[in-house]
């Protein structure tokens, strides 16, 4: 299975433990990586995957255990040491600097310079080559990163990892923000790297990706390795799920219910445009209906949601909820009219990382629990506890700062926020991004339950099967236009991709 014949151990982590003020994130993990392989690390949200790779990247110090690099025991006191050793990391939460250009981000910390004078032209040239290699030659090295979409930021982060002359590249959920096309690109690059003998540690919650790209698998559960070095080819998916969750998860989409013929239109979008981004988008969503927006990254799906929500001011067209027209560009009005948005970038747009879970959950409705101006934190904690139960959010402590939660659990906070708020219309941008298989099934079931209770739901997802499985009706978006609208049962993944390709070519 291994590409190349160099099977000497590159990295060996033995009995790694890590304790954060009172939380045992890792209780003994082993990880062995050989040169030229794609080693997948699997585990549920909060299992400790990111913690493990942060230890390897020098971002965290282990509480115990040993690390061997090419047979030699090593300490990794800081990120610079890891990079010098030959480990480059793409972190799960985007870690690019918005105010800098693409080239500046890529060479941040290892600037091309002589005597302090930057070689800007050379940096730009190298950057262009890296971007081309990733299939994004169209991005200018001088573009400010803050203006990029989440997917393109991920590309920058990837280019940065490539810019280091690494023997091991860690990718923590790189595909979470990428669409099918981009993932193909990513895999092409991964294959190229492994054939040069570079090893990859690959983390993803999408098991079909592991099947496609992975060589071996290490499974972590509750901070301990359950299995290390499993061969991908010999391990069936249900077995993986059982190792990860300790139970058997039925991985199916919840059944749809026939929409009653008289279900009222709740959300009505009419000729909505945002100059330069999308134009003339019209559709409506009825009570109990789930509408999915499918399309490539950059097709304008997130922007459509944000404009409906009022986070961006539409240049023309309007949005109505229950027949009442909303003022464009006024989020607070949208929220009072009953719209909720779970944004794409939970870290920068969704959460207050230093604040406890419960304040994040009640961020949009804490005033409702208050007596006049007086906060009622006891009730806020109580409703948060209910959501923690319902969504199996971990750790189950309303006072834990949101920033210390694993990625998937942070996503659950966003859902919990709108569940406690109670909305007529729910706009979900990548609702299962970074969410593990078990929780994913729960979130699908939850979305369907909300719809059955009469909520109108719009879902954007880069995973086409998710849109098709979850939605009642699918809108295919390309180049900022609605290319096609159809019941989800009447189209398949190929159909969607065909439409997208045709639409964008036209």
């Amino acid at each position, binding site marked *: 299975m291994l590409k190349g014949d160099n099977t000497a151990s590159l990295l060996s982590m033995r009995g790694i433990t890590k304790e954060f003020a009172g939380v045992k994130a890792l209780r003994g993990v082993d990880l062995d990586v050989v040169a030229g392989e794609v080693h997948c690390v699997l585990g549920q949200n909060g299992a400790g995957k990111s913690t493990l790779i942060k230890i390897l990247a020098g971002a965290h110090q282990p509480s115990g255990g040993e690390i061997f690099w090419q047979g030699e025991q090593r300490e990794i006191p800081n990120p610079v040491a890891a990079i010098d050793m030959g480990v480059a990391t793409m972190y799960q939460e985007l870690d690019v600097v918005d105010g800098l250009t693409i080239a500046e981000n890529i060479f941040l910390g290892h600037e091309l310079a002589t005597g302090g004078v930057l070689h800007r032209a050379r940096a730009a040239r190298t950057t262009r080559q890296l971007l081309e290699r990733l299939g994004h030659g169209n991005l200018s090295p001088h573009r400010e990163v803050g203006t990029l979409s989440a997917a393109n930021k991920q590309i920058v982060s990837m280019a940065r990892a490539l810019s280091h002359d690494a023997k091991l590249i860690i990718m923590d959920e790189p595909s979470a923000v990428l669409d099918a096309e981009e993932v193909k690109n990513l895999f092409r690059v991964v294959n190229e790297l492994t054939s040069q003998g570079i090893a990859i540690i690959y983390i993803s919650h999408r098991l079909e990706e592991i099947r496609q790209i992975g060589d*071996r698998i290490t499974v972590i559960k509750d*901070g301990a390795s359950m299995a290390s070095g499993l*061969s991908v080819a010999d391990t069936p998916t249900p077995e993986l799920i059982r190792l990860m969750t300790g139970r058997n998860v039925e991985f199916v989409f919840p059944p749809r219910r026939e929409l009653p013929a008289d279900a009222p239109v709740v959300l009505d979008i009419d000729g909505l445009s945002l100059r330069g981004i999308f134009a003339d988008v019209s559709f409506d969503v009825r009570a109990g209906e789930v509408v999915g927006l499918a399309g490539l990254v950059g097709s304008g799906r997130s922007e459509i949601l944000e404009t409906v929500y009022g986070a961006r001011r539409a240049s023309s067209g309007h949005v109505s909820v229950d027949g009442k027209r909303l003022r464009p560009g006024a989020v607070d009005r949208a929220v009072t009219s009953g719209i909720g948005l779970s944004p794409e970038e939970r870290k920068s747009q969704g959460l207050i990382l230093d604040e406890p879970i419960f304040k994040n959950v009640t961020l949009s409705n804490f005033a409702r629990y208050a007596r006049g101006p007086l906060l009622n934190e006891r009730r806020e904690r109580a409703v948060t506890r209910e959501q923690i139960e319902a969504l199996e959010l971990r750790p189950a402590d309303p006072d*834990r700062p949101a920033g210390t939660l694993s990625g998937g659990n942070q996503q659950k906070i966003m859902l919990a926020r709108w569940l406690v708020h109670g909305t007529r219309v729910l706009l979900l941008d990548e609702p299962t991004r970074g969410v593990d298989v078990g929780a994913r099934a729960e979130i699908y079931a939850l979305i369907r339950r909300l719809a059955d209770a009469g909520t109108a739901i719009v879902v954007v997802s880069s995973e086409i099967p998710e849109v098709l499985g979850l939605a009642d009706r699918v809108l295919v978006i390309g180049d900022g236009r609605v290319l096609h609208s159809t019941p989800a049962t009447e189209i398949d993944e190929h159909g969607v991709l065909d439409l997208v390709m045709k639409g964008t070519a036209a």
Partner: protein
Amino acid sequence: MSEQTPTTVSESAAPTQAAPPEKKSGNAMQRLLGGAAGRNLGLVIALALLIVVGAITAGDRFMNVENFLNIIRFASIIGVISIGMTFVITAGGIDLSVGSVMGLASVVASLSWVQAAADQTSWLLMVAVALAVGGAAGLVNGIVIAYGKVVPFMATLAMLVGARGLAELLSNKQTQIVSQQGFLEFFRGDFLGIAWLVWIFVIAAVIGWFLLGRTTFGRRTVAIGGNFEATRLAGIRVKRHLVALYVLVGVSAGIAAVMMLGRTTAGTSTHGTLYELDAIAAVVVGGTLLVGGRGTIVGTVLGVLIFSTLTNVFTQNNLSNSVQSVVKGVIIVVAVLLQQRFASRPGRSS
């Protein structure tokens, strides 16, 4: 290849249950010291040390009730401004104009025709005028920042310069003596033997503490400082709230102006010069994060008291202002270093 054969850990060898949130006593201590109580404890210890130094070097001149009341009276004006400042800094902003707005408010409230009008009605008119001037300046700051999208540093720097200039124009750079009898009498008086200046400070501190920690207004303030965009997307009217915050700090400068008029019995355009720096220093030393997202009124009060105790100890020992400034600078740096050391922000540990 043989050492890479798959190894599957049996189900029983693995931890049987998900880790419950652990609360061990060792960590309770850690939590306490890392938390708000711990930070305040550090400030209390610093204050206690200063008092010990004062007692040793100045003896009975320092250690008497009268002197302690002096220290608090000395702290009260800066204290009120610092409480307002805590709010804007917690929300991720800053107000550099508080000192000159205070000067302007003191000038306007002591203009001869205002005093004359107060003679006809009540001395409270002077108070109302000072608060209105402070509030209006804050309103301008807030609108320019929230709706004009000017960074707070620049907007309030402009106000700092502008308000001082306006105060000079209105007063012809003359000191305006307060002759309004009701006003003078009130500030000569006391309540339970304690000067009104001190009471105003105490009341402002209690209201500020309550507002920041216990009300929806405070929650919004912290949220905006913690993540502006997330707060906006949660449906909170962030712009309106920003304006309210700058009005609040402006009004606190207005209150400070009234207190200054009461203490000095004169209004002048130079009142409050450099107070913005003292206030910011007290707020930051107190443990409020300069980047926003965390604020503490108790810390601010302790910060103000530390600085005024320091000044008192130095004066009692006849040390120069310059030495005092050097020590103040050192304290600010040390306090900020300690903050980073002991109160590292969650999510960014180790």
